[in-house]
């Protein structure tokens, strides 16, 4: 039952402009986009292969067969073998588990921090000035440099890589969330909620956060893509996860020494990165177009 305000006003106001019609229009737009469908299929295939790696791969990612070292791609080894005779296909799909997990978890950390910073900055004018300066300052550091520095002090583990990349991408989310919050704050339904005495935390939860879903989704998709690239970069430089752990970056790093005799070692993990990031960028672009508020007019 809806709680009632002491003044007799219902505590629960109807939610802001309903998100459903926008999502419905967006879904229709997305369905029509053939390139997007292809990108979704490719990304799902990469995710499925990574998730089911232990079932799909015939060989373990670290299983060595020196007699089969540096073998070119064949029916027995789709992506060839490395200098220890390890199956590159198995390493790439097992590595994908870590690379994709790092990307996905980074999105969660960046969005959690970014939404908090962005909403505080956009909704509370008193905090805006300083938070905007902090966000601007964080964006003055190149992504990879800040990530390297953070991993250097936190230690080269997967969780620290995720925390570091989450911090690096937080300002991007914060900027987008702040901009949207500034607009939402002035909309009639939020003003009405304030005028009716709805507590701030409820306004933020019910009216602001819910309407931030679209920009966060779009931004999250792009951050997923950037984080995959950045994690691979950190692993390649040897400052990310341990070089013993197969990730797309560490496999390329190890393969560069054999680039001449066995280019497949670095070729396939690189292609896995490009396919995943390219698909995510197409999806992000399509989501941004589809969730554009201007589409509301078509409802």
């Amino acid at each position: 039952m809806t709680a009632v305000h002491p003044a007799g006003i219902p505590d629960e106001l109807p939610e802001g402009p309903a998100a459903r019609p926008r999502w419905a229009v967006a879904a229709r737009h997305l369905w029509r986009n053939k390139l997007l469908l292809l990108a979704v299929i490719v990304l799902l295939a990469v995710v499925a292969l990574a998730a089911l790696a232990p079932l799909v791969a015939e060989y373990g990612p670290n299983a060595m067969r020196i007699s089969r070292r540096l073998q070119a791609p064949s029916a027995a080894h789709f992506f060839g073998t490395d200098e220890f005779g390890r199956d590159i296909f198995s390493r790439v799909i097992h590595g994908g588990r870590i690379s994709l997990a790092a990307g996905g978890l980074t999105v969660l950390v960046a969005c959690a921090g970014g939404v908090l910073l962005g909403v505080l900055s956009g909704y509370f004018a008193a905090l805006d000035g300083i938070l905007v300066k902090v966000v601007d300052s964080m964006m003055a550091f190149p992504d990879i440099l800040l990530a390297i520095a953070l991993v250097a002090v936190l230690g080269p583990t997967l969780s620290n890589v995720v925390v570091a990349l989450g911090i690096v991408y937080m300002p991007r989310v914060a900027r987008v969330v702040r901009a949207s919050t500034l607009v939402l704050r002035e909309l009639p339904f939020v003003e009405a909620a304030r005028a009716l005495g709805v507590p701030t935390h409820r306004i933020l939860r019910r009216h602001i956060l819910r309407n931030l879903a679209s920009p966060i989704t779009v931004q999250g998709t792009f951050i997923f893509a950037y984080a995959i690239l950045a994690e691979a970069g950190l692993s390649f430089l040897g400052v990310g996860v341990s070089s013993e752990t197969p990730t797309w970056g560490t496999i390329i790093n190890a393969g560069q020494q054999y680039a001449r005799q066995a280019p497949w070692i670095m070729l396939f993990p690189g292609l896995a990165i490009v396919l995943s990031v390219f698909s995510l960028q197409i999806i992000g672009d399509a989501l941004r177009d589809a969730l554009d508020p201007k589409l509301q007019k078509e409802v």
Partner: protein
Amino acid sequence: MQTYILKRILGMAVVMLIVATISFVIVRVVPGDPAAIMLGPDASPADIADLRARLGLERPLPAQYAIFMGDLLTGDLGRSIFLDRPVVQALAERAEPTICLTVMATLVALLIGIPAGIVSAVRRGSAVDQATLGLAMLGASIPSFWLGLLFIQFFAVRLGWFPVAGYGDPGAGFLERLRHLVLPALVLGLLSSALITRFTRASMLDVLGDDYVRTGRAKGLDEWTVIMKHAFRNALIPVLTVIGLTVAVLLGGAIVTETVFGLPGVGNLVVQAVLRRDYPVIQGTLIVVAAVYVLVNLTIDLLYTVVDPRVRY
């Protein structure tokens, strides 16, 4: 105008103060004793105590911060533990390859990105436009280190057109050193051109429908003049903005690319510093690179009035 410049410089000072504070904090959040971590597990307690004293880690945090900021104002970024020289000197010694690489990569990115963006906008919706947009997105999806390795294999090892790695012999002339930067600059520039292409296209699309473009065509001006003198000039401001943003991407990209191509630049210095836990170098690099980014963006902000006389501060 002067008031605006003063305001911008003041804003920049605030950003730099926060940048320095973030850099200070990052190095102090090390779990455990930073001196012990820097020296490694084999260090003796006396060595650790000595380093703690040298870095001033025994003082309370606010005192450390005050000394750090005071030193920073005099241009002192601390002393590298492993190189045993001032961080400023270490950075200055490594600056040339990084600056040259960033400038060359910016030129490559502009030479590819601006024409591609203009053609894409003028031929909006055509196959050329779709292909350009697709390639731009693909460019933003390729890891620079991977493309670098592929380029080395193809252009340097197979075709022998460029040196495989390094920055030339110690006595190599400037042109010889630049030759070593061509391949890394191509890699960085190609990948960074993606962002410039997309921004140029969007900016051109905004102005191509404007009245003055239509008037230019109605006057019978040739298409080149209409596009380059009327449309592009007015589309330049967002393009300039993205060039400023690209600097951060390029400086970051240079860190990774330098490692792939074995260039003795700032990127290589910082990666070595991370592997050796040389925190003063990491801290100093963070501050200097962020300062370069902030300065470039301030310069670009001030350039707006030059490229577009309508902009008045």
